[in-house]
Structures are given as structure tokens and as C-alpha cells.
């Protein structure tokens, strides 16, 4: 693992995270937002594992596993919601969904 330092991995993770965040903030399509969230989760995983590796602790990887399980659960529910939404108003434009405003 020559010159590969923790910095590299963290930079990668930061990059992925920021791209994911941009995706969430700029896109209007729920699906895209969803994917961006997955991306951000993935970024976190990278940094977790990187830390695990450089701090000689397995905990990083275990946490990554849990992150993945959470991501899975979240995806399931999220997609379910999308289904209900499309049935209701056949558009995934997030701005039109402002039921929360009441």
C-alpha cells in the first residue's frame, strides 16, 4: 500500500459526498435524489473503511455493513413512497409535493 495514505481515500470520500449532496440539492426528480443519497452513503462507507484500515480497527468495516443495511431499508421504503406518489399524481417533481406546508 505504498504511498496510498488515508488522505487519498478521504479525498475520494469527500468528492463522492459533495457530488451526492449536489445531486440531492439541485435535482428535482426524486429518483435522482435517491440515488444521490445512496452515493453519499457510499462515500461515508469509503471513509469508514479507510479509517478502519489505517487505525487497524475492524469496527470501520462493521459500521460499513450497518450503513449498507440502513441504506437497503431506506431504499425499500423510499421506493415504496415513490410508488404511492406516482399513483397519486403521476409526477415526481419534488416541488409539487408540498403537503408538509399545511
Amino acid at each position, binding site marked *: 500500500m*505504498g504511498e*496510498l495514505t488515508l488522505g487519498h481515500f478521504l479525498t475520494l470520500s469527500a468528492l463522492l459526498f459533495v457530488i451526492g449532496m449536489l445531486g440531492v440539492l439541485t*435535482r*428535482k426528480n426524486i429518483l435522482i435524489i435517491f440515488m444521490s443519497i445512496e*452515493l453519499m452513503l457510499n462515500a461515508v462507507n*469509503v471513509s469508514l473503511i479507510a479509517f478502519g484500515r489505517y487505525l487497524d480497527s475492524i469496527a470501520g468495516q462493521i459500521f460499513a*455493513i450497518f450503513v449498507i443495511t440502513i441504506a437497503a431499508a431506506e431504499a425499500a421504503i423510499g421506493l415504496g413512497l415513490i*410508488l404511492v406518489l406516482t399513483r397519486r399524481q403521476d409526477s415526481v417533481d419534488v416541488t409539487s409535493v408540498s403537503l408538509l406546508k399545511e
Partner: protein
Amino acid sequence: MDWATIIFYLLAAVAVLTAAGVVFARNPVHSAFALVISFLNVAGIYVLLGAEFLAAVQVIVYTGAILVLFLFVIMLVRPEDLRELNTAPRVQTALAWLLGLALFAELGLVIATGVLTGARGPYPPEEVAAAGGNTQLIGRILYSEFLLPFEVASLVLLVAVVAAVILGLPDRFLTGERARGLSLSLGHPTGADRVLEAERRGVPAVDAPDLGEPGTIDTGRAPVGAGRGR
């Protein structure tokens, strides 16, 4: 520049590019595929970090299951039919970019100046090997120290499953109203059911706020739910 660094840069570059692809793709299907590629590259990086088990999990679970589910849903809702207002208001985008860069700068600063202050873990690489490799070690730790979180995680998954099923059910099951006509089969492309029918007749199924007659948004095509599936 040994092999590992080169491979790292390669994988990282592809991952980042495809991630950008996910965000900026016009068509959701393209972004889905981009996401798949990105995840695979990340799996590669895991291997680089000596987390083989996780790389496998990433490939099988994450990419294999979750993203497939994504693709499935995208197909289900016919993305090209869905109207796509993918450009958020100007100010939102600008602010988002600003915040993104700010965050990246901050993280960069942390990474540059940060010093590893965490306590050294008990498992340096030789220890991992002694324990029989990455996967064995994870297995042992997972079911010993982290047993409780593991159970909780399983509970979370259970909830997710139940929720997904319920969300999938057509409303008539919830409202207890026996509908004779249409029955939902997962095979049904739009999952449309009597809800839209009922709404057209002016009887609001659920007292949601009046967002205007569904389907009135001019889509240039026949309204999604109503038109099909009869």
C-alpha cells in the same frame, strides 16, 4: 508509483466520474447505470483497503439488490413518461453549488491538517491475517461485540419490509372498501387502481389538500393513471 496507487487513481477517477454522471444525467436510466458502475469501482477500492468481505457485500447487496430495485422502479414508473423538471430554481442551484464547494473546502482542510488522533485499534493487518483473514474476523466480531447492533439492524430491515409491502398495497385494501373491478397485480405497469377512478368522481379518497384536478398539469399526453390499464 506502484501498482496499488495506479489502480487506486483509476478506480477513484471512474467512481467520481460516474458519480457525476448520476447527478447530471438527463435520463434517470442513464444515471442508474452510472451509479452501478460507480459502486463497482468503490468495491474495487474496498479490496484495495483490504476489506474483501465488504467489497463482496458492496457488489452483491448494494449494487446487485438495491440498484436493481432502483432500476426496477424506474422501469415501473416509465421515466420517459414522467415529466421531468430537473432544473431547480436558479437560486437553489447556485446556493447548492456554493455550499458544496464550501463543504468540500472544509473537508479538504480537515483532511490536510487532520492528524490521526483516534486510538489505535487492536487489529493491525498482521492480526487480521492471524485471525484467518478479513471475513473471518468480521464474522467473529460481528457476532460477539456487535451482536446487539446486529439484532437492531435486523429489526430495522423487518420494519422496512413490512412498510414496503403496505406501501405497495392499493388503497382499497386500506380503506376496507371492496372493489369488484380492478385488482392489482404487480405485473400491472402503473399500479393504477380505483383511487384515481374515485377522485375523478369528486369523492376524495383521502382528504388531501386540493392540489387541483390530478392530471391537469399539461403533460401533452393522456393523464397517466386514468388512461391506462382499463
